[in-house]
């Protein structure tokens, strides 16, 4: 019997499917907000996603305070300040972010500024955490995800901040917005999602609620990952993968940080190579290492990745192992889009070590630099495959 000592918190209301975008004005009104500022990326407006959003607001009586579309692939404080000024000038009372990664980070940073009426964002990073509820914040996943949009962590100017106040109030998943730009982008998002889910499953604290979120996330990924990568513009599958991303993101926000995630983020910072690539490379060895260290993962992974029929057919003692195998097989679906070996990236050894040190010295990161080095070593040997 597993013990049930846990805490679970998930602030966002998830809305997905037909007419989801059209429900935003009602959603805002139920939060007593009537004029949102839209924050999005250049790439997103180029693809016309802003037009789709504007159309969805037709006949709603709810004006948009402006569409701030300056975000590219870096989340910086100056962008957040500009957005905050626009917010104040237009008298907005809520923020809608269209797009993942830096867009969601800047939008939440801007929300911190306008809600606390300050210009000093880094006070929150330097030991005085946000102390009050922020303005209503709605996140609309579009294109790629970095796995933390639906959670409670933001990264601005390469500094990380975690707070329960940073959860979005609502997440709107609509197939008109979720299509990925390229196969590679779809594959990277999928890998981040899978890493979030497995982090949640492997977490030592047994929380059935977190497992339920991770379960639904992996379930969608198992059904749609292959097709979503093959046809990144397919609406049905990209919607399913966006759902998976949100669910896994919430599950991971309630689990201790995973070793792969920390390492991949630091390496991304140092080398500029997308974290999805590192997740792909390190996960097999990391799973093997974790199994050795803390025992095999629970059998929930098999239930999520294989479904009821496969789970029921597999003998009980083989379920954890089979779950890991099915999970790795899913990662393999990204073949051709993402490099598979560390050597092919040509990263000098000192940079790898530096990343390990950075990751190990992170606050609330339960692994040491040696642990990270060990995983890199195992990966180079081809461990876990």
């Amino acid at each position: 019997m597993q013990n049930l000592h846990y805490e679970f918190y998930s602030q966002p209301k998830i809305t997905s499917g037909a007419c989801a975008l059209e429900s935003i004005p009602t959603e805002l009104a139920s939060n007593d907000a009537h004029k949102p500022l839209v924050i999005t990326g250049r790439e997103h407006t180029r693809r016309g996603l802003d037009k789709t959003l504007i159309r969805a607001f037709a006949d709603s009586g709810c004006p948009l305070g402006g569409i701030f579309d300056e975000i590219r692939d870096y989340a910086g404080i100056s962008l957040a300040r500009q957005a905050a000024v626009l917010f104040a000038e237009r008298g907005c009372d809520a923020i809608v972010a269209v797009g993942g990664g830096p867009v969601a980070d800047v939008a939440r940073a801007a929300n911190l500024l306008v809600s606390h009426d300050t210009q000093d964002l880094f006070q929150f990073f330097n030991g005085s955490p946000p102390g009050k509820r922020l303005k209503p914040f709605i996140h609309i996943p579009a294109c790629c995800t970095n796995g933390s949009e639906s959670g409670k962590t933001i990264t601005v100017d390469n500094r990380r901040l975690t707070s329960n106040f940073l959860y979005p109030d609502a997440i709107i998943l609509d197939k008109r917005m979720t299509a990925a730009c390229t196969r590679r982008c779809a594959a990277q998002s999928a890998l981040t999602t899978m890493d979030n889910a497995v982090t949640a499953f492997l977490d030592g604290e047994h929380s059935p609620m977190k497992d339920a979120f991770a379960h639904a996330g992996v379930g969608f990924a198992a059904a749609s990952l292959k097709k979503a990568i093959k046809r990144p513009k397919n609406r049905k599958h990209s919607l399913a993968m966006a759902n998976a991303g949100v669910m896994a993101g919430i599950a991971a926000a309630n689990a201790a940080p995973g070793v792969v995630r920390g390492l991949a983020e630091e390496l991304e910072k140092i080398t500029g190579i997308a974290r999805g690539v590192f997740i792909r490379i390190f996960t097999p060895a990391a799973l093997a290492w974790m199994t050795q260290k803390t025992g095999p993962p629970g059998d929930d992974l098999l239930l999520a990745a294989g479904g009821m029929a496969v789970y029921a057919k597999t003998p009980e003692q083989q379920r954890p192992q089979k779950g890991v195998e099915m999970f790795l097989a899913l990662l393999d679906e990204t073949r051709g889009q993402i490099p598979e070996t560390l050597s092919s990236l040509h990263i000098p050894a000192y940079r790898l070590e530096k990343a390990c040190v950075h990751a190990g010295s992170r606050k609330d990161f339960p692994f040491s630099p040696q642990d990270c080095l060990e995983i890199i070593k195992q990966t180079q040997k081809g461990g876990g495959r």
Partner: protein
Amino acid sequence: MKSISKSVNKTLNISRYPEIPPGTKLIKKGYVFVMLLIVGRAIEAASKVDQSVKKIFGDLPERFTFYLGVAPGGPYMVIGKDKQGNVKYLGWNLYGRKIDLGLDIKNLESAFKVFTFQESTAQAFAYDRFIVEGNLPQALAVVRVIDIVEIHLLPKVIARLAVKRYPKWSELSPVKKHLNRVRIYLKSFSPGLIKVIYRNL
């Protein structure tokens, strides 16, 4: 806030990010308007022709008035019982009426889905598309009326999409169904229609 406004304003040209007032979708709005008008008139007609509709309205309180429409700006249809208990389609103006029950569909796009029968009323209810302002049992009674009226108005192929259970002919014989359908259509498009339109303008 002021001070950062100044420093940031140098780099930020606010007019590049104009405020965007909500547009309008005239064609869809028009379609829903016409459908509401037809359904409204048909409810009035059905309350005289169909026994179960008659009974449901009989159980509702005296001078009961309700509307079905699209939030936040319409279109609407208003239906009420008069002193004698006759059910009347009162048009599309909400103003100057005492409304007992409001059924709002959350947005035009959802209303369009309901009135093009892509979603049944029950499904739309389950998808949280309705906002009920007033007493829930009465709202359920009204939804039941709309279901029955749809069975009468629509050919079987379409009505089967709009309601949960299409009655078997043992419950509703084809002769009676078609007779009722003709009566409802005739009553709906009688001169009363022009009268009610004129009164609403």
